[in-house]
């Protein structure tokens, strides 16, 4: 369960949002919407513990969390704007490195299953340099599939994905919610999530 109380964020002189409060229970999703520059990314970075809010607190499982708190780092997958891929490494090596960084060690079979599920099995040995934007995002999807974390923080996860990619993203989110995970996604484009489990937070 993730809870935000009175979050305020400023970037330089501009106030992005003030006194934002919400609570997302296990098995629920929160869709953060808003135009460009309304602070969606900043909010997600605050929830991930990467950025200090100017005021307010974030609680995870009831405990207030400080930036880079280890209790949160053990539970979160954060997929940011930048896909964290190395051009020199292959799709598979990139995926494996990112997963192993979360202290998880999937078997070869699990890795290839995850790559197949996002239609990257033919590209697994290709360096990330030659992958398209959508294919790079799909590595992030494969990562979601492999990392067994209760809290997903997704920044514009639908960007550059085609219809099939979007399908597999929504499926994965639905499954995460079904097993009691929590998903918070920032997006400026609508995509189908199970409505009974999804709340929306509009930043303006």
């Amino acid at each position, binding site marked *: 369960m993730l809870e935000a109380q009175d979050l305020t964020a400023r970037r330089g002189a501009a106030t992005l949002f003030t006194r934002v409060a919400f609570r997302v229970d296990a098995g629920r999703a929160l869709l953060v919407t808003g135009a460009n520059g309304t602070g969606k990314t900043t909010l997600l970075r605050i929830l991930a513990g990467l950025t200090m809010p100017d005021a307010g607190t974030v609680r995870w499982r009831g405990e207030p969390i400080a930036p880079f708190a280890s209790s949160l780092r053990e539970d979160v997958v954060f997929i940011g704007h930048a896909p964290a891929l190395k051009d020199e*490494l292959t799709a598979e090596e990139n995926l494996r490195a990112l997963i192993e960084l979360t202290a998880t060690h999937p078997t070869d079979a699990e890795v290839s299953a995850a790559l197949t599920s996002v239609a990257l099995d033919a590209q697994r040995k290709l360096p990330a340099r030659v992958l398209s934007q959508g294919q790079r995002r799909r590595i992030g999807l494969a990562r979601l599939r492999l990392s067994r974390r209760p809290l997903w923080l997704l920044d514009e996860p639908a960007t550059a994905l085609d219809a099939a990619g979007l399908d597999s993203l929504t499926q994965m989110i639905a499954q995460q919610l079904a097993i009691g995970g929590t998903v918070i996604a920032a997006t400026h484009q609508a995509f189908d999530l199970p409505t009974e489990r999804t709340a929306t937070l509009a930043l303006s």
Partner: protein
Amino acid sequence: MTNTLALSASEAPSGVGAAVRWAVMRDLRLALRSRAELGVQLLFYVIVVSLFPLASSPERTLLATMGPGVIWVAALLASLLSLPRLFASDFADGTLEQIALSPFPLPALVSGKILAHWLTTGLPIVVLAPLLGLQYGLEPPMLGIVTLALLVGTPILSLLGAIGAALTLGVRGGGSLLALLVLPLYVPVLIFGAGAADAMRAGLPTSPHFSLLVAGLLIALVGAPLATAAAVRIALD
């Protein structure tokens, strides 16, 4: 994926060893894939060392006197040249965020990156030093002292440099700022490192210089990863 999947801190982070191994293996693999870049840095080191005999008189005693100092200055510059590579690309492509959010302790991951940096830049500098020393007509015992001092000193350069590299992340003109920040910190290493060769030439014991270098290395080993980790977190905010 099963429903029994423990949605909790599933695998406890196995800690420092695994973190260092992850960072070393990944950075070494990346370095191997971009060998050209490493080659350029080493070539720079070789060329700088080779320029001095051309620019000064070929007198044997003069060359032998200035040889160790020249090698040390070139090692400093080559190390400086390679520092931006340590964090800049990870910062730009989002990997550094993922590293900072990893359940592994950040100072351990940073230590692994520094170790990989030393293995790919510091160690080749040490290995090439005896060959370059021959250009200056250094005798084998002197070559040994210079190489040994570099072996202890170059890890300090990587450790101190990492602090500067992390502090200048995201700063415009970070490269020149990095040089201003780091070169003064390198001065003690230079003094004691090159000083060991001076002491030997004067017939004095070299052990005080080595004791100070080793002491510096130990302090840097403990302090630099912590300072670098703090700087990385500041850069990400």
